[in-house]
């Protein structure tokens, strides 16, 4: 049956038939490149009347360099060894048609030397892409401003500049049967625990899918818990964050055509850490980190608490606030639960719309949204003033968590808590919190506990957990990462 477990695309017999390797020839190439408008097949004659055929895809190669590095030197070549005249560092001989196809699609020029009867591949990829810009998702005031781009090579360069050591290893993989996406696994040899590296290697090589356009798709195939709302890989477009993580003993996975790099293994608490934490003075950074945890709690539980208190536990509300609450709710036709659901849903719609809309229109949206939610909803009697205030606090709080994926997870948890609180009151929120904690405790990232260093407990790592301790005191790498080199300074013998 089609839903039977274990059935995969690879098992389909029609897909598994491998083509018989064919020798490369001009005719077979023309057949393969049939109906491709951007294919160029040009013939040239050298000084000693040798005929040379050049084949390439116009859209993928650097045409200026083609003239300078290949065509000009080849035409001027006085001797028989044509490839010696080509002015590029990498020239390879190939024999199979399959290799030729792949090379053409990665931006190479095929050169047929008719006298020597050989085919040469000269990589000449077009370096098309945007420049290095400031990160938009993880903006910081102080600190490095550069961020990753969609190109793999510059991304590796950005990390290598920060870690100029030969121990920084890069392993290249190709994934995606259609997209042929390059994935690079980076780690520091002799520092990162080899277990993580072998797990990551295995997971990447086991990926079996056709298209990969983003690192989150790669993460989805590497995660151990597909149905969890919590991200098990940290995604960042900041090279400094990557370099810092590598230095702690984690590994990074760079994916072609995406500026977001995956970092693993991570814990729940890593999602609350910002690069600015290590720039600010430690008491300030600690305060900001505590505020972040607090705001996470507020964004998740504030509205459910409102619903629980106004529906079940009015005794818990101080008398002064009860005055305000009763006044604000006195004319509403909805129960607190429906009132909260209504406002939160509208808010989510506005949030999602403002992300998708062009910048100029989103300003209008902000104004309209503000008026609709802040003023009109209260006047029309759809929502109480107190709820509006709480919705604002909880929404703003949700943006304090530095990880965007985590922000989205907040919303789902909030809705879950809301449902529980409307049925069971504060007890429901407690039950929900226990369930979330149990779930977090069971999660793993690259098979490492997601809730460490709290569970399992590593007390030394708490110096950089809820607070960010002084850097001078952080002399060892986090124990929960099990790095091969524990100390972060050179020890005297």
């Amino acid at each position, binding site marked *: 049956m089609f839903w039977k477990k274990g059935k995969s695309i690879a098992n389909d017999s029609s897909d598994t038939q491998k083509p018989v390797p064919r020798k490369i020839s001009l005719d077979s190439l023309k057949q393969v490149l049939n109906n491709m408008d951007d294919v160029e097949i040009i013939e040239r004659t050298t000084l000693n009347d040798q005929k040379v055929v050049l084949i390439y895809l116009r859209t993928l190669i650097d045409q200026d360099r083609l003239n300078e590095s290949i065509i000009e030197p080849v035409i001027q070549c006085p001797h028989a060894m044509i490839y010696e005249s080509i002015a590029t560092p990498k020239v390879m001989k190939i024999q199979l048609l399959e290799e030729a196809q792949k090379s053409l699609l990665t931006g190479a020029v095929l050169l047929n030397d008719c006298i020597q009867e050989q085919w040469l591949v000269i990589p000449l990829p077009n370096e098309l892409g945007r420049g290095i810009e400031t990160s938009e998702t993880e903006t910081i005031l102080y600190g490095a401003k550069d961020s990753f781009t969609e190109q793999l090579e510059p991304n590796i360069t950005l990390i290598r500049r920060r870690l100029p050591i030969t121990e920084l290893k890069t392993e290249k993989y190709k994934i995606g049967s259609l997209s042929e996406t390059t994935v690079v696994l980076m780690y520091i040899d002799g520092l990162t625990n080899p277990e993580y590296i072998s797990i990551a290697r295995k997971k990447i090589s086991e990926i079996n899918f056709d298209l990969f356009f983003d690192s989150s798709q790669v993460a989805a195939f590497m995660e151990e818990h597909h149905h969890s709302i919590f991200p098990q890989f940290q995604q960042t477009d900041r090279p400094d964050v990557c370099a810092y993580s590598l230095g702690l003993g984690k590994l990074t996975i760079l994916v072609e055509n995406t500026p977001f790099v995956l970092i693993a293994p991570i814990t729940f608490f890593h999602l609350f850490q910002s690069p600015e934490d290590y720039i600010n003075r430690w008491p300030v950074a600690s305060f900001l980190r505590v505020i972040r945890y607090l705001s996470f709690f507020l964004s998740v539980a504030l509205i459910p608490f409102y619903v629980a208190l106004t*529906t079940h536990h*009015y*005794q818990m509300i101080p*008398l002064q606030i*009860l005055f305000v609450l009763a006044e604000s*709710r006195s004319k509403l036709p909805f129960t607190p639960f429906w009132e909260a659901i209504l406002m939160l849903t509208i808010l989510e719609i506005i949030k999602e719309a403002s992300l998708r809309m062009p910048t100029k229109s989103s300003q209008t949206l902000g104004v309209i949204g503000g008026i609709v939610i802040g003023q009109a909803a209260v006047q029309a009697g759809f929502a109480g003033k107190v709820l509006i205030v709480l919705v604002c606090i909880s929404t703003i709080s949700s943006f304090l968590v530095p990880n965007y994926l985590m922000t989205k997870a907040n919303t789902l948890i909030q809705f879950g808590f809301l449902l529980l609180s409307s049925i069971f009151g504060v*007890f*429901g929120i407690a039950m929900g919190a226990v369930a979330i904690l149990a779930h977090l405790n069971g999660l793993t990232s690259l098979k490492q506990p997601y809730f460490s260093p709290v569970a399992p407990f590593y007390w030394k790592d708490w110096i950089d957990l809820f607070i960010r301790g002084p850097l001078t005191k952080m002399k060892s790498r986090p124990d929960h990462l099990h790095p091969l080199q524990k100390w972060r300074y050179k020890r005297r013998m």
Partner: protein
Amino acid sequence: MLFVWGIFVSLVMIPGCAPFVENNTIEDIAPVTFWSISKGEKRKIKMSTLVPPLVNEPKSLLTLEVDLLKQGGKDFNLRYYRELKVGQLRYFLIHEELAKQGIIQLINTLLTDYDISQRMYLVIVKGNFDEYINRQAKKQEYLDYYLYRMLRHYERKRQGEMTIVNLHEYKNMLFSPFSDPVLPVFKVAKDNFTYEGTAFFSNDKLIETVTSTEDQIFQLLDNDHYLKFFPIPKLDVVIGRLRSRVNVDLDKNLSLVTINVKLNGRIEEYQGNKNILNGNELMQLQKEIETELEMKTTDLIKKMRDLKVDPLQIGTHTLSPFSKPISEKVWLAAWGKMKIKVNYQLYFEALQNTKNNY
């Protein structure tokens, strides 16, 4: 899966958090801030409360004559369109006459109701409170709330100017063998509702009320040990910012209690004949104040002793770590015959111009 659901359902049912809850949404309820209880006709109790406490509607006083407290709570609901909930009950006013007959039943009812907060204040009222609040509610919209704020403001560890006792504290004093409960007494006189003093209870019955100077001494000896102003009209002086340190010493055969009180304060006002800028005359005044306080305090403690009540919890000084505590009966018998000795040591903060006048 069934097992997990079983655990889940039991978890929900055990603490009483079943989904079948009472409809408590706050717009449907009228939280009750106070109950006023006095004697009704034919052994009934008269209950009053003010509604609505929250929304902008004219306030009205609901009064009932009932046999039982809870019956009153139920009947109030039938007279008002919102459901009256006692979850925000902040103070409980008991009429003096009723308190003299004993209030244990009322207290037990309050203690066993899990909706009622233990931090609810108990107050004894002299005069017709219902009339007062009925009249005053028209002038002061949130009068019921302001009364609660006043009690909260003067609570021990906040201000300590007057005796303020909550249900929990009253219960503890009532059931402790070496103490007797006290409650504040407020008096209604026309449009005034003023603090009168402290009522002493023997078991659950009001037996004596101390007022003015005696009450102030009681505040210094027991309640927060602080007074902002202590007027002594007889000596034309007001001592201010008084802080006391009380040391109680019981002799071994329980025949003498010595109370040493060290007082720190300053003269806030003086209208007498002495020149208090003169060191010698100031010392003379100080001696007079000490003597006056010793006399008044001795009288107050004698009063307690003769009534066989121990609101200062002197009995607790009989306890020691490795000996068996004496019984309540033995203590009260000894307390009733005990000799009393009171010593005051008064320290004034230096006045500016007295230094060179000795």
